[in-house]
């Protein structure tokens, strides 16, 4: 992994974070936080997986937690809940292809008949989707679970 790979990864993640932020009607002055969060989250996950060889799910959990903690500072300055921009920042890390592969494999089992290969694909991508989405949501909730237990963030 080189610095250029990392920079390219962060830039490529910032684009969908902004794009989906626009789809979710995030106001223009907040979009920059979506971009920073998207780049930071996907970039740190890329670094953890590539440099440390960490499993994807754990790297996702740490990356989402990092974005969420950084998001708190921005949220308190903005006077808005951090989720209004951190959710868009998470979109580049959502395992979309794995989710579709799971459902497609199940549909195929119905069309072509059961096979071990299809079941293996369905279970593997299904588990991947489940754990990565779980890691994203738990990582986002980390500040509330660990520090802001009885008091609101904003």
């Amino acid at each position: 992994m080189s610095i250029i790979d990392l920079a390219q990864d962060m830039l490529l993640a910032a684009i969908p974070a902004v794009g989906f932020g626009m789809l979710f009607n995030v106001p223009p002055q907040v979009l920059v936080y979506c971009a920073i969060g998207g780049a930071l989250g996907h970039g740190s996950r890329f670094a953890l997986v590539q440099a440390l060889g960490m499993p994807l799910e754990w790297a996702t959990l740490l990356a989402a937690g990092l974005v969420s903690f950084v998001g708190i500072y921005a949220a308190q300055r903005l006077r808005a809940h951090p989720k209004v921009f951190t959710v868009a920042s998470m979109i580049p890390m959502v395992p979309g292809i794995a989710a579709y592969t799971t459902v497609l494999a199940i549909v195929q089992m119905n069309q072509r008949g059961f096979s071990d290969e299809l079941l293996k694909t369905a279970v593997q991508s299904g588990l991947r989707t489940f754990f990565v989405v779980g890691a994203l949501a738990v990582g986002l909730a980390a500040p509330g679970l660990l520090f802001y237990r009885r008091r609101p963030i904003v």
Partner: protein
Amino acid sequence: MRSEAPRLREINRLCLQAGLQLMQHGAESALVESVARRVGLALGATRIDVAIMANALTVSASSVDDTITRVGRNEDQGINMHILIETQRVMLDLEAGTLNLESAFARLNAIVPFRYPRWMVVVAIGLSCASFARLTHADWTGCALTFVASALAMALRQVLGRLHFSPLVNFFVSAFVATSIAAQGLIYHWGETPKVAMAASCLLLVPGVPLINSVSDMVKGYINTGISRGTLAALLALSTCGGIVLAMTVWKVWAWI
């Protein structure tokens, strides 16, 4: 104490309106409950109880000697973070004491949902899916194909949404169109990575927000709303896959498994 009742009723109505506004525009349950409660407590209610269901919100406001309960129907209006921000700022101003009951109603009713121009969202989503393709190591031809397929699918999704089609129908048709366009790359051998383009062009239909909200709700103890959000996300993914399978059957290409 008789004079308390109308004010308590209005406080309850404000809590319900603020909570519903959050719920309709894609907030997680913990935020809905905390905003509804803090609005009521800021205005002097002694206690606010909130019950969140998938399709409705119930708020109960109490003063020393009275309780008023009201149910509001929740109709999903699509995700709009601008409304979430504005609603929460009304709550913060109420807590700071710069708004009273009447001006808070006026502020809530005056929120005009901010929307980006449609063409801009279409281009941005096209670029987003092209970036996803690039992240999965597509070549530039594949990225361009993804851009065209997903931008057209996004435009179609907006049109069908405006015509009030069910999101399930909408996602099925949009996935069919996106996959059909991307399938041409596979048929005519454009570039080295047409399969990646085919997968990436449907990523605009991944129900990311319901999925994340589903897990956060369940983690925070709102198992009911978490399950219903998760089920909706699964249905949307299923209907998207229906569109993908139909397109692959029509064009006789098989790129996924």
